[in-house]
C-alpha cells in the first residue's frame, strides 16, 4: 500500500506547519525566517503528498502493474 508513504509525507507537513505556526503567532521569538522556510516546506511537502496520491491514477488503462 502506498498510503503509508502519503501518511509519512503528511507527518512531515504537520510538524513543519506547527513549527511555522509557532514562529508566526509568537513574534517575540524573533525568527520570521522559520515561518517562510518551514511554512514553505510544509506547503511543498503537502504538494508532494498530493502528487504521490495522484501519480498512480494517471497511468493508462491498458498498462499492467509490474509489481
Amino acid at each position: 500500500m502506498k498510503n503509508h508513504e502519503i501518511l509519512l509525507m503528511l507527518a512531515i507537513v504537520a510538524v513543519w506547519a506547527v513549527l511555522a505556526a509557532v514562529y508566526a503567532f509568537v513574534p517575540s521569538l524573533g525568527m520570521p525566517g522559520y515561518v517562510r522556510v518551514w511554512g514553505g516546506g510544509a506547503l511543498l511537502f503537502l504538494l508532494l503528498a498530493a502528487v504521490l496520491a495522484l501519480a498512480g491514477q494517471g497511468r493508462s488503462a491498458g498498462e499492467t502493474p509490474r509489481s
Partner: protein
Amino acid sequence: MDIIPQDAPVAAAPGRTAHGLTVRIRTLPRPDKALLNLLFGAALLALVLGLAGGLLTALARAGALRFYSDDAYRLLTLHGVSVFFYWLYLIQAALLLALAAAENGRGLALRPAAWAGAALMLTGFAVSEWISATGTPLLYDGSPELAVDDPRSVGVFALGYLLLAAGLAASAASGIATLLQPRRRGETEEFGAVGFALFAWAGFLIVSAIAATNAFLPGLLWALGAGPFPADHGTEWHILFHNLHYLPLMATVLVWYVLTEHLTGVTSIHGARLSKIVFAAYLVFVPPTSLYHMFLEPTLSDGVRVVGSLLSLFVSVPTLAAFAIIVSSLEASARAHGATGFLGWMRGLPWSNPAMANMGWAVVNMMAGLTFAFVLIQGDLAPMLSDTFFVPGYFHLFAVGVLTQTFLAALMVMLPALNGGPLWRPALLARMPALVTAGLFLFAAAGIAAGTMGVPRRVFDIGYGGLAPAAWPVLMALVGIGASLFAAALSVSVYGVVRTLLSGRKAPATDLTAVAWRVEPSRIGTAPAWTGPVSIAALVAAMYVFTIAAFQLIQSLPIAAIGGGHGH
C-alpha cells in the same frame, strides 16, 4: 575471532544482475550520462578547490605559511564556499539524479529542468569562486555586515548562492519527476526504501533552496538598492546552516543503503516500511532541532533556549536508527551464512573494494563526530565551546570523514558503470580511508583540545602579543599535521576518482570484490546481532565521558558567571 566460513557463497558484484545499480547506470541514455559526468566533474572540481584552500588554511594556522590578512581570509572563504556549498550540493544533485534515473530504469524525466539546473549551479559556482577570490572576504556565510561599504561583494556573493539554489530546485524537480515515472506507467504502486528516501531527499533539497533564498535574497536586493540592509542575516543563516548539516547526512545514509545492497546484496531485514519511517524522521526531527546553533545569540529567549536544548537531544535519532538497521541487517545475514565471533563477521565484508573501505571508515568517523557533536549541543557548554576551534575540530570528522568519503565511495561504484572504464588502482584506493581517518583523528583531537582551551575558529595569528597560552600554537601545529595527512590521502582518492571519470573506455571495467549475503527471511535473525547495540552503547558512554569532562572543566574555571554567555 572467527569469520564467515570459506564455503559461504561469495558472488560477483550484484551489479551484474538484471536489477543491479551498475547495470541500470550503464544503460542510461547518453544525454543523461553526459549530464551526470558534467555534474560529477564539477563537484570534484569544487572538492579539489576546497581541499587545496583548506590545506593552505590549516598550514597557515599552524604557522607554516604566512599570508596577508585579507588573502588568508579569502582562502578560508574559498575553502568554505567550495566544500560546504559546491562540493556538497553539486554531488548531492548529481547523486540524486543518478540514483533516481537508476530507480526509474529509463533515465531522467524533465530532462530540460535537469540541464537547466546544472547550468544554474555551474554559473553560481563560477560566480561564487570569482567573488570569493577577488571580493571582500565574507567567509562562507557571506555576512553582509562585513562589507557594509562594499555592496558589490555582498550582492555578487549572494547571487552565486541564489543561482545554486535555483539550480538545486530545478535538479530536484527533475529527480522527483523521474522517481514518479514508474508509478505513472503503472509499473509499481509504491516506492522501495531507497525510492522513498530519494523522493523525500529531493523535497528537502528544494527546502534547502528556499532556505538559501531566504538568507541571501535580502543581501542581493540591498546591493541593488532595492531593499533594506539585511540586519537579520545571522538568524536566517542559521536555518540554512542547519540544513547544510543534515541534508548531506541524510544523503550519506541513503548512499550507505545503496552501497550495502550493491556490495553485499543485503537489504534491510526489518522491511522497507521501517526504513521509510527513518528517512521521513530526518525531515521530522531535523528542523525542530536547529536551535542549538543559536545558544550564544544574545536575543535568544529563554523559552526557545529550553525547547532548543531539549530537542537537540533528538538530532541523531534517524542517523542512529539507520545505522542500527544497516548493521543488524548485515550481521544477521552474515550469521545466517554461518559467521561466528562477536565482531568477526565484519571481516567477511569486501574490504578490498575501495567503496566498502570508504563506507566502513565513514562509520568510524561518524561515531567519533557524534560524540563531540553532543558535547557541543549542550547549552551550558556553549559559552566555553561555541565559536572556538572545537567546532571545525569535530565537524571535519563529518564533512570529510563521513560525507566526503561516502560520496567518493558512491563515485567509485558509479563512474566505472557510467563510462565503461575501470576504477583506477582499487588496491591503493582501498588503503586511503584508514589514512584519511588517522589524519582526521589527529586533526580532531588537537583541534578539539585547542578549541576547549579557547582557540578561536577564524584567527590566523593566535599569538595575541604573547598573552595566549603556550599550548595554543603547539596544538594548532598538530592540527596542521593532521590536516596535511588527511589531505594527502584524500587527494589520492580524489585523483583516482577523477582518473576514472576521465578514463573513458580505454580499458574494460572489471567488477570489484563483493559478497552475496542475502538469505531468505526465514533464516534471518535467529542468532543475536550485538554489533549495533554495543556500538551505540559505546557511543553513548563516550558522550557521557566527554560531556562530564566538559562540565567539570567549565566548573573548574576561575570565574563564576551568570548569564551563560547570552543575555537572558
